């Protein structure tokens, strides 16, 4: 009998099983179920249709308002009001209203993301929590309603693919560039229904906000989860905030993997995903001079204090190019407060940028900063699908690439700035 990967161990422990095998369907009891404003409304309606009056474990349900904040229409406000009334009626205590931040950032900062936890979220980027050694995965509305009603959900145990990052990233590159590199290598269908497990010096050297960027992008190659083995960095990050005692899970030495990807981090340079595929990856240097109408820094991919501070350091004493809109949206209230305290929101505003309410912003195509026909955006988000953010075209890049690009109004290599 071979050993178990992290994914197998976490799913086994939540299915009350000694071991589970890839391909099996197992019934798990999640530690946390996450819904945001956009998903809670359909989920609560589906819960009633399924025949449940109550959420089985309201103390395990986390609701975060992040997509439509502040609300853009009366209809949406009506929905949000209904959701808030329902949250109170159900006795859901973990409720984070508009302005708290993006659900994944909030879960991480508030100690829900901990080693060994199983987190089901009605949002595809729930893979983010793999950064903490948790198994986080996205599910749909009916699945989520069923999980809330019964307290359980069936999951298919995934095969695991090892990603080994040797050496460390060069200056002016970040976890986003590493993530884009991997997306180019694996392609958008390279890990459908698999769990990724990230190993090597290049991963160990990453701070938690960078690991979140990496795990967040796991879903973009089709993966069910993207797990980083917990270490001292993880322990320090959850020490004072963990809502449940960490259950540190690491892979067995003889765990079986479906395959391995090796990356030499020293070869990673500032990268882009070009319109309109996440795996259409090229180097920033090859696209210098492409005109950009909007630069957007934020989303659950690159919106932590450190992400935006790296951006702000480059635009300090500079001016955003005429004809280019700069939108910066911190991922959480905590990030915004830290940026304020460090004077960095002023740096961005004085450079000509707009700083928005913590939340998802324009990323999902319905809320502020939507592109017009022919517009080009360079953003730090995780998707550039056709029509994702309106009519225009989207390039994905790092916060540093976004800063260099905002200053010149055209795609610019951050290594060329200062």
């Amino acid at each position: 009998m071979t050993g178990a990967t992290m994914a197998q161990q976490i799913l086994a422990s939540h299915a009350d099983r000694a071991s589970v095998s890839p391909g099996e369907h197992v019934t798990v009891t999640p530690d946390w179920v996450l819904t945001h404003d956009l998903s809670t409304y359909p989920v609560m309606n589906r819960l009633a249709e399924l025949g449940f009056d109550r959420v089985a474990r309201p103390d395990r349900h986390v609701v975060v308002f992040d997509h439509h904040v502040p609300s853009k229409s009366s209809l949406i406000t009506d929905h949000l009001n209904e959701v808030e009334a329902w949250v109170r009626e159900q006795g859901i205590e973990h409720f984070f209203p508009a302005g708290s931040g993006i659900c994944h950032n909030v879960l991480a900062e508030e100690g829900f993301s901990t080693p060994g936890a199983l987190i089901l979220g009605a949002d595809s980027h729930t893979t983010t929590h793999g950064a903490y050694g948790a198994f986080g995965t996205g599910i749909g509305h009916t699945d989520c309603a069923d999980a809330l009603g019964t307290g359980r959900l069936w999951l298919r145990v995934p095969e695991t693919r090892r990603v080994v990052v040797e050496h460390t990233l060069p200056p002016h590159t970040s976890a986003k560039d590493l993530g884009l590199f991997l997306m180019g290598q694996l392609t958008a269908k390279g890990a459908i229904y698999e769990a990724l497990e990230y190993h090597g010096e290049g991963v160990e050297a990453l701070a938690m906000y960078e690991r979140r960027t990496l795990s967040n992008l796991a879903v973009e190659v089709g993966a069910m989860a993207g797990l980083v083995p917990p270490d001292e960095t993880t322990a320090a990050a959850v020490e004072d905030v963990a809502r449940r005692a960490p259950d540190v899970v690491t892979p067995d030495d003889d765990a079986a993997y479906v395959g391995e990807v090796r990356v030499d981090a020293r070869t990673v340079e500032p990268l882009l995903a070009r319109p309109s595929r996440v795996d259409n990856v090229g180097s920033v240097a090859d696209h210098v001079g492409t005109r950009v109408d909007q630069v957007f820094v934020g989303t659950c991919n690159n919106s932590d204090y450190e992400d935006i501070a790296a951006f702000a350091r480059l635009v300090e004493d500079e001016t955003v190019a005429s004809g280019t809109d700069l939108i910066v949206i911190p991922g959480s209230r905590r990030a915004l407060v830290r940026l304020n305290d460090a004077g960095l929101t002023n740096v961005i505003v004085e450079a000509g940028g707009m700083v928005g309410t913590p939340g998802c912003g324009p990323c999902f195509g319905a809320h502020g900063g939507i592109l017009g026909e022919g517009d080009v955006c360079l953003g730090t988000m995780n998707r550039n699908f056709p029509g994702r953010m309106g009519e225009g075209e989207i390039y994905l890049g790092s916060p540093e690439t976004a800063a260099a690009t905002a200053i010149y109004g055209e795609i610019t290599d951050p290594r060329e700035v200062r």
Partner: protein
Amino acid sequence: MERRGRVHRLPDDVDTDQILPGEFLTTVPNEELGEYALRGYDPDFAARIEAGDVLVAGTNFGLGSSRESAPVALRNAGVGAIVAESFARIFYRNAINVGLPIAVVPGISDHVSDGDTLRVDVARGEVENLTTGESFDTDPLPPDLLEILEAGGLVAYRQRATR
């Protein structure tokens, strides 16, 4: 669990933003979502779908968002089944939960044209191009998922179980 219908071909990597763009999320009632099906891919697509038609897609169909409104839009537009070379994980679950039959047939794109008639039986694991006479291997759906699909989706399945 047999469906027969006229084929609409789709390429690789049709994502959930193309199937149902973000601007229609939550603002459009479920029963009207069919009108917006595949709006991001081709604004005229939904108008061409007749009840029972079959989508034949390339790899990684439904990648992206967890939005269940995407398969609901296709179902409500009249799509009877989807056959793809592969499906994104969340879309695969959502399709079954909303009662939309799906089958995985690697390589099928090269053997089916727009307008062909396809027969899809997800219980037996049979996909046949009735126009060309070609048949294709596909695994039958696992019994637990088939039960949900045969009930018409997870809501109907639970309602039946509690009756």
